[in-house]
């Protein structure tokens, strides 16, 4: 496939960079920063090649690169992108150099290791976004966990140990459940596919038994819901954000949270449509709770970083609601909202970094009146805040609007409705529009408005050239995404349509009693065969199950018969 080299290349580049940076002398901090920036910038430029090769009209995986990796497991190193992952990849490669450029200077201990960690993190995230193999995905999923653990644990704030351990245990708990489900899928699919594989495309052809789907989906969903994070699995997030260095926060909120939603779209929902159907109401309700709850709790914060962290809970709630609404604009809007959230929340955290570097506090009460002192920063920050609050013509609006509209219109164009009372959930979620304005403007006012009455704030310099270099691309991105969302949405549209139609087909076709008992392979149209496929496929109907049981009973009788003489002989032989 043309351009297939791009994806492995952008995973490989940061990895090589990480190795290279570790080979340089430890004391050369500026060299390390330079390498980090160069590598991530090159990665970004290379990743732009994706746009050249990506055909926005196709709904299949593109730029697919596939080599055998662990033959004995059937694991492949298989990468590829579609409309869901295309811009998420670009978001990652875009944010990385910006983050390093803007924040690397605030790290002054173990710079070499910091750069290496960030580069490995980038490789892991990109790998997880482009993986088309369940095994590869799981490996990448764990690969990105560890650098983030180190970022928080080594370069973090006061309570960094608590936060990093909490982060790791939360995430690991989820990923272990996912691993169990992966094993199950792997074994079941292997038995009907005639060979063990972790290739996502092949696994998607397998329809698992109904109840297995429900449990497997739940296992995947817990892993992803922790990442999103859905209420009530969110409490690791504020701690992690508060303790993480700015770079960690930006990447955590900007990119890593997206894996939750992305995981649902790429793995959980296509593999287990019936599971999705069963759990969608729960997810929808939790998302709505998260939207409202996150916004309410954000308002009660005194710590700016916590406030923004809780705002992520609220914003990602929209995304989660959008995907279970299962409408084209719900899902498209959800992916779009993730992209926008990457820019706006990334920007919010970078701004907090700017403040923190100058004042070494994150308490709202310590600020006030900064507009007078830092007008350029205030103006740019206002745009980011408004983008986050969903002001039309800025990036946040498009995603928010489409997800809400999608929720309202659940069932449009024949898409299945898997959430209850979509209108009411949609209306409740829409209150997030009000609540978002409440806490964001509260924060903005506390920091920038009012009298400049704290002596320390009186000397704060406005943005430096370097910082402008970080914020201006972000703000331009926010404007572009708000005013010209079409290129983004166009690229998603075919994928979204395919996703929904496949989901609908699988849910409709592979339903009923025929599907409650056995694992089977679907044909090319996504239909389940009427008869079980392959000899190994166990009995699939109630009658057949009964046959099975009868056979077992008969077998037992036969065994008894066969051993009876011996038993008698043994008895006879006793004194």
């Amino acid at each position, binding site marked *: 496939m043309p351009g297939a080299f791009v994806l492995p290349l952008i995973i490989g580049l940061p990895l090589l960079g990480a190795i290279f940076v570790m080979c340089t002398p430890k004391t050369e901090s500026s060299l390390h920063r330079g390498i980090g920036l160069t590598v991530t910038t090159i990665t970004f430029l290379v990743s732009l090649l994706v746009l050249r090769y990506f055909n926005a009209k196709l709904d299949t995986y593109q730029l697919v690169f596939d080599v055998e990796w662990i033959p004995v497991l059937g694991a492949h190193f298989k990468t590829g992108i579609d409309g869901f992952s295309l811009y998420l990849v670009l978001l990652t490669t875009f944010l990385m150099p910006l983050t390093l450029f803007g924040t690397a200077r605030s790290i002054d201990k173990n710079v070499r290791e910091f750069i290496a960690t960030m580069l490995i993190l980038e490789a892991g995230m990109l790998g997880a976004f482009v993986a088309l193999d369940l095994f590869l995905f799981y490996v990448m999923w764990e690969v990105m966990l560890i650098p983030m653990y180190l970022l928080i644990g080594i370069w973090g704030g006061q309570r960094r140990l608590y936060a990093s351990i909490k982060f790791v245990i939360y995430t690991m708990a989820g990923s272990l459940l996912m691993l169990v489900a992966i094993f199950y899928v792997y074994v079941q699919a292997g038995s009907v596919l005639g060979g063990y594989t972790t290739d996502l495309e092949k696994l998607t052809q397998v329809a698992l038994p109904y109840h297995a789907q429900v449990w497997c989906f739940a296992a995947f969903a817990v892993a992803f819901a922790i990442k999103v994070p859905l209420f009530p699995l969110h409490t690791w997030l504020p701690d992690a954000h508060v303790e993480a260095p700015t770079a960690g926060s930006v990447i955590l909120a900007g990119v890593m949270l997206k894996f939750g939603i992305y995981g649902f779209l790429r793995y959980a929902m296509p593999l287990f449509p019936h599971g999705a159907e069963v759990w969608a109401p729960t997810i929808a309700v939790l998302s709505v709770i998260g939207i409202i709850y996150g916004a309410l709790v954000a308002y009660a914060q005194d710590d700016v970083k916590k406030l923004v962290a809780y705002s992520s809970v609220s914003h990602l709630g929209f995304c989660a609601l959008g995907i279970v609404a299962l409408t084209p604009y719900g899902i498209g809007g959800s992916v779009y909202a993730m992209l926008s959230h990457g820019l706006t929340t990334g920007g919010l955290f970078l701004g907090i970094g700017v403040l923190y570097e100058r004042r070494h506090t994150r308490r709202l009460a310590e600020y006030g009146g900064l507009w007078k002192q830092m007008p350029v920063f205030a103006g740019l920050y206002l745009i980011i805040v408004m983008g986050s609050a969903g002001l039309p013509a800025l990036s946040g609006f498009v995603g928010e609007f489409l997800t809400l509209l999608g929720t309202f219109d659940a069932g449009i164009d024949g898409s299945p409705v898997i959430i209850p009372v979509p209108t009411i959930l949609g209306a409740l979620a829409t209150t997030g529009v009000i609540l978002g304005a409440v806490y964001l403007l509260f924060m903005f006012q506390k920091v920038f*408005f009012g009298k400049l009455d704290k002596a320390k704030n009186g000397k704060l310099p406005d943005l430096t050239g370097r910082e402008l270099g970080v914020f201006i691309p972000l703000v331009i991105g926010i404007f572009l995404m708000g005013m010209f969302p079409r290129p983004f949405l166009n690229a998603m549209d075919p994928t979204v349509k395919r996703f929904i139609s496949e989901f609908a087909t699988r849910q409709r076709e592979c339903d009923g009693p025929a599907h409650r008992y056995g694992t089977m392979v679907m044909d090319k149209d996504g239909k389940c065969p009427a008869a079980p496929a392959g000899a190994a496929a166990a009995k699939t109907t109630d009658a057949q199950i009964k046959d099975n049981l009868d056979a077992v009973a008969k077998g037992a009788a036969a065994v008894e018969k066969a051993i009876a003489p011996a038993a008698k002989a043994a008895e006879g032989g006793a004194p």
Partner: protein
Amino acid sequence: MDFSHLKAGPIPYLAWIPLLPLLGALINLTLGRKLSRGTIHVIAIAAVAASCALSIYMVFGPLRQLYVSSPEQAGNIGITQHVYTWIEIGSFKADLAFRLDTLSAVMILIVTFIGTLIHIYSTGYMAHDPRPAAYFGYLNLFTGAMLILVLAANLVVMFIGWEGVGLCSFLLIGFWYEKEEYANAGRKAFVVNRIGDFAFLLGMFLLFWAVKSLDFQDLKNPATAGAAYVKAWGPERLATAAGIFLFIGACGKSAQIPLYVWLPDAMAGPTPVSALIHAATMVTAGVYMIVRLSFLYSASTAAMAIIATVGLLTALAAAFMAFAQTDLKKVLAYSTVSQLGFMFVAAGTGNWVAAIFHLGTHALFKACLFLGAGSVMHGMEHGGSKTPGDITTMGGLRKHMPITRITFLVSCLAIAGIFPFAGFFSKDEILGGAWSVDPPGWIPGYGKVLWAGLLLGALGTAFYMWRLYFLVFSGDERSEEAKHAHESPVSMTGPLVILAFLATIAGAIGLPHLKSPHLPAITHQLASWIEPATAQTWYETKVPIQPAGKANNEGCCCIDGTNNPVGTALTKDGGDMTVGACRELNPPGAPRSALKFTCADHNTKQCAIEKQSDGTTWGLMAIALAIGALGIGLAWMFYGRGPTRTLERLVAGPLAGAYEASKNKLWVDEIYDAIIVRPYRALSRGLLEIVDRFVIDTVAVNGSAFVVGLFGRISRWFQNGQVQRYLTGLVIGAALVFMMSDCKTHATFEFERQGDTIILRAKPGAGVSGSTSTLYWDITGDGEPDPDPANPSKLLTGPEVRLRAGDIHASRVTLIIEDAVTRKTIKITRTLTDESAPEEVHEGSAK
């Protein structure tokens, strides 16, 4: 007609109208800090003035041409220009498209014209402000957003403008952000508006859900939308629900009950801002939106009743609150709220033209009043006043500020509804419309109630406005500062004069319909201009009317249920139609209406609600005029030369309660604070502390970690690698096993018959199986060890004994275990004939 040539570069003219001010804003907001004050002024004013010029060209050029040349297109006159497709995914599509029709034409003229004047005025008013670039940038940004709002061809684009003006309002109210309460006011405005926007969004979602489009033309088109309405919910219920949601949005933007509370606080902004945003343009966006969606609202009786009622209540409540205010701008703010209420009553009675008419005249005289107030405050500030808006310190300013005084006087006459000033005509039209409206589904006579209420509101308006005028300009100066006040520069008085002049004559575009033969034929210019863009008749969709059954070119007329013509019937020449001709046009069986409709246009055979007769029109005008005059008279009585003694007595005595209520604005802010703001804070704080910190984090997360940790700590004590401790554990464990086992595993015995022989096998249980214990058997049932029947000299002993059946006298056999170590004797008794479990009797006793 093809309008695709109307563009400059790739961008059509209609897009340039908002784009020009936006570009001005872009320049001033990015580079402005490096530009000189003069350059900033030039850029800002040029941007708006160019936009104004382009608007005038578009309206009086292409649009007027279209209007004149194609009457057959009535209801669909307009120029739509697409810029690009903004959002598109799945079946959702929103174009960035602008539409200029006769309705939006009126709005863009108001916005750009008054906008230009206020930009000019601001150069004088803000001459000493340290941040001119920000100020003019915001002002330009606002103008651009407002133009997007009014020119939008669909609801989504309208929402860009809708929220955009909200943002500018936030920024400009909090322009002097260093004062905490100003910043609070800005935030309050934004948040309250967001409450409205929430409902606006819901309305949009609902409409899209039903119609699958948010384009005004699609929504309006009965061919597409009509079917969808019916399919979704039936026309009225959908229109009612969507209409009410959108109206709540309008309540936020246009400061109606219960969302009006932000507007009085918004007076924290610079005064020209109050004039432009919070009087002339932005706050009227809600009214505009309702008129824009008149086709939707005309399908819902309930929504209309709600709009009219809310409008009336707002008009009255705000007028009441204005009575006792002592801040110049606060009085004007409540006045604005009240006047917006009038406009909503007009909209709620289906009187679309009157709503827009009043919107226009109000924009003129209220902008003039605000700018006048700004001029007064400017003068007072120069006089040395620290509280320039306090009217109790004014008085006698007519001597010092003659131009301001004259323009203020004219505007006060206009707002009080005195002939021939503009407010007279527009207010009269609203009152007249309310008087005559009587649709099915409303409480009979509700129109009259609205009329009476509005009349009361008009009385209040005249009173508080003239109170203001007298307190500011009449009598003697009540403070030193007032004595030293002086007239403002020409950049400020110039716009005042222009606005006052327009407020005097603008009524001419909306002269009432009078058919009296004694007068020359008068046409309501504005009505015939706007009507193509609004729903022609209220209830168009709800009550189908068939004015002309036959395709008859003679004219049209409407007929009631008894087959009699109602209202006016027109022949094609404009003359009266005979009863017979009318019946012929409406054969039996044609749909009938209970409403009084009249032929509005014999070309299109459209019916309209019958307007009241000339006599009624004159009568209503006279009453309205009298009420206005009465209000002025009352104000003069109490305040003519400053506050009078009578007034002080009244305020201290019988009117004390009312006075306090008005002064404290009916305590609405306090009530909201108690029932919304504080509970909200408490809720968010409570959720954080209780749910997040305690239930989730402490109990669930750290709790499970604690439990895991506890197990860890306990097991750690054992597994610390010290051999001594392992050994100690070993010993204690072994001892425990040893000590506990004899109580745990009970001794018993088995028996087996083999022919005659009975074999007894002891199962001594753990702990007593050692060589130290001795086992005896009792086979006689006496509880004592018995001798062996085969060898009577020895006691029967050992773990396994063989007996003949006859040896056992009783069926009960007892096993007696004597443990030498623990010095216990244990007895187990079983009945041999019984196959069931042994009946065990344990007796332990120390030897």
